[in-house]
């Protein structure tokens, strides 16, 4: 039971220059192989993790309703499906925009994200203002900044009318503010 578990690694003699060279070679070889292994593992891992950075959004026009569904001068929330969702996105495979019908044939679509911090702005129809719940940003009905910290107007999405249907061009969440 009481066995010794002490190992002794004492060099038995002073290494010769030849052995030193050989040892240096083994050191270099081992470190280089470690680097190769790390690269073989690291490149695909890093590539896999950062892949979403390079995922392009498809240029997809999404129908959000018939023109008759939208009253002139009214602004409404139009939800729409994510045009290229991952299979397990579920309830999150959705987006939304604020759609305003300016006139008979003219529509404006705003991003729902406040340009200050990205929080979802709400439309107050009687006041005709967009308000942000986070830090109190306010926008006029044309999306321009009315008050508070937002540095820019609400981002606009492309919108068109095709065959009597209003279509919005799906777009990424706008990352609006720079340093």
């Amino acid at each position, binding site marked *: *039971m*009481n*066995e010794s*578990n002490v190992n002794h690694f004492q060099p038995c003699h002073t290494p010769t220059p030849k052995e030193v060279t050989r040892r240096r070679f083994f050191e270099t070889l081992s470190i280089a192989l470690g680097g190769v292994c790390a690269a073989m593992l690291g490149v695909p891992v890093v590539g896999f*993790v*950062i892949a*979403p*950075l390079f*995922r392009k*959004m498809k240029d997809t026009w999404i129908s959000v309703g018939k023109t008759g569904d939208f009253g002139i001068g009214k602004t409404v*929330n139009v*939800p*729409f499906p*994510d045009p290229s*969702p*991952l*299979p*397990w*996105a*579920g*309830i*999150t*495979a*959705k*987006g*939304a925009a604020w759609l305003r019908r300016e006139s008979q044939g003219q529509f404006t679509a705003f991003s*729902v*994200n406040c340009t*200050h*911090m*990205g*929080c*979802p*702005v*709400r439309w*107050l129809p*009687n*006041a*005709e*203002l967009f*308000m942000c*719940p*986070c*830090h*109190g940003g*306010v926008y*006029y009905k044309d999306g321009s900044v*009315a*008050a*508070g*910290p937002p*540095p820019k107007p609400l981002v606009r999405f492309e919108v068109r009318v095709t065959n009597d249907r209003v279509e919005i061009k799906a*777009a*990424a*969440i706008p*990352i*609006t*503010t*720079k*340093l």
Partner: protein
Amino acid sequence: MKRFVHSVWKWIDDRLGIVELVGPSMKHLVPHDAGWWYVFGSATMVAFIIQVVTGVALAFSYVSSSSQAYETLLFITNDAPFGSFLRGMHYFGASAMVLMVGAHMAQTFLFGSYKFPREMNWASGVLLLGFTLIMGFTGQLLRWDQNATWSVVVAAEQAGRVPFIGDWLARFILGGNTIGGATLSRFFAIHVFLVPALIFLFVALHLRLVLRHGISEPPTAGKPVDPKTYRQKYAKLLEKSGHPFWPDGAWRDFVFGTGLIVVIVLLALLVGPPALDKPPDPSVLNADPRPDWYLLWYFAVLALIPARLEGYVMILAPAVIGILLLVAPLLNNRGERAPSRRPWSIAVVVLSVITIGSLWIAGARSPWSPNFDPVPLTPQIVGATSGPVFKGAQLFQEKACLNCHLIEGHGGRRGPELTNIAAKLTKNDMTIRIVNGGVNMPAFGAMLKPQDIEDLLAFLQTRKIQRP
């Protein structure tokens, strides 16, 4: 029987070398007067162990899929035996970890324990503080309710301000161009694998350094740290009056740690886990994103800093604070340790607590946010049932003035309270403000008819506190 157990233990210990591995750590000498001030480090460890244990248990039912995470949380909270309790433990364990790491850091700073030779103890602790806050934020996101999804967007917007790589960072956080399938799974990987691995690594380093340099003795005024002589003096001190960590020093850690666990259990039982918000549907816009309490102070910072400084505060301030904390021991690693000889250290800690505390209170109240559901003004408050005053009151509510202004306890706090506005502003002043707006108020000139403005003014001119 006893002999048999002893014999088995001896065999196991011989093969595994447990006593050889742990014994010196447990028996290492610590200053005899290291008292209750020294329990916060081990308490942080206790909180972290609670997080690991409850986190692993929760992971048995949690599904890190954007489509199912919310449902699994509902199941854990409402149906699974002990599910709600475990969620509560995990939440209050996180809170305890943040508080204890803060207390440990303040004590270390006040006692000057970061000075020679413990500079790297401090630096590794600073990194552990950062990891703890990352765990707090990512943990909130794993709730994967409406609040969580919008918090991801807020985080992405902030990251977007980093020069040159901001857009990439933002897309990395979102897991693409929008909230979706990839968003949650990456936060799950960060919260469950990546950052805990870093915490384990740095806790091991931190403990290794504690053993290497010893627990700092309580500071004494007039006994400054001199790197040339400190180690010899410390060794002599331990030789003369040190006692073994186990059990002479450790019992306090066990008492305090047990107390901490009891408090966490009680809070989990009595208060319960944080309520789940609505499902994470990005097309539902009636959301009100708020961070958990330990980051509310930062939420307040974002609301209160001047707009032109915002980007710098958001990006540079955390970087500068982090670097300052990391290099603090290098700037001042010798000299007096006693707080009485370093009054500025007390000032730094007190000022930090007051600043974060004040910001925290401001964040909890968040007066800068409009009130989207104000209680309507009562006829008694309006004081009229017809005529211009009545119409003005109606307009005041319809045009969302009430969302931002308080009148007799009704409304928002975004703008100034108007309960007594007639005593402060003339009709002309009010007209200018309504028509032109201000920094935090829209200009209503183009949105209101002249008669509407007159009615509003009629209402506002009646807003005067009647003195008896």
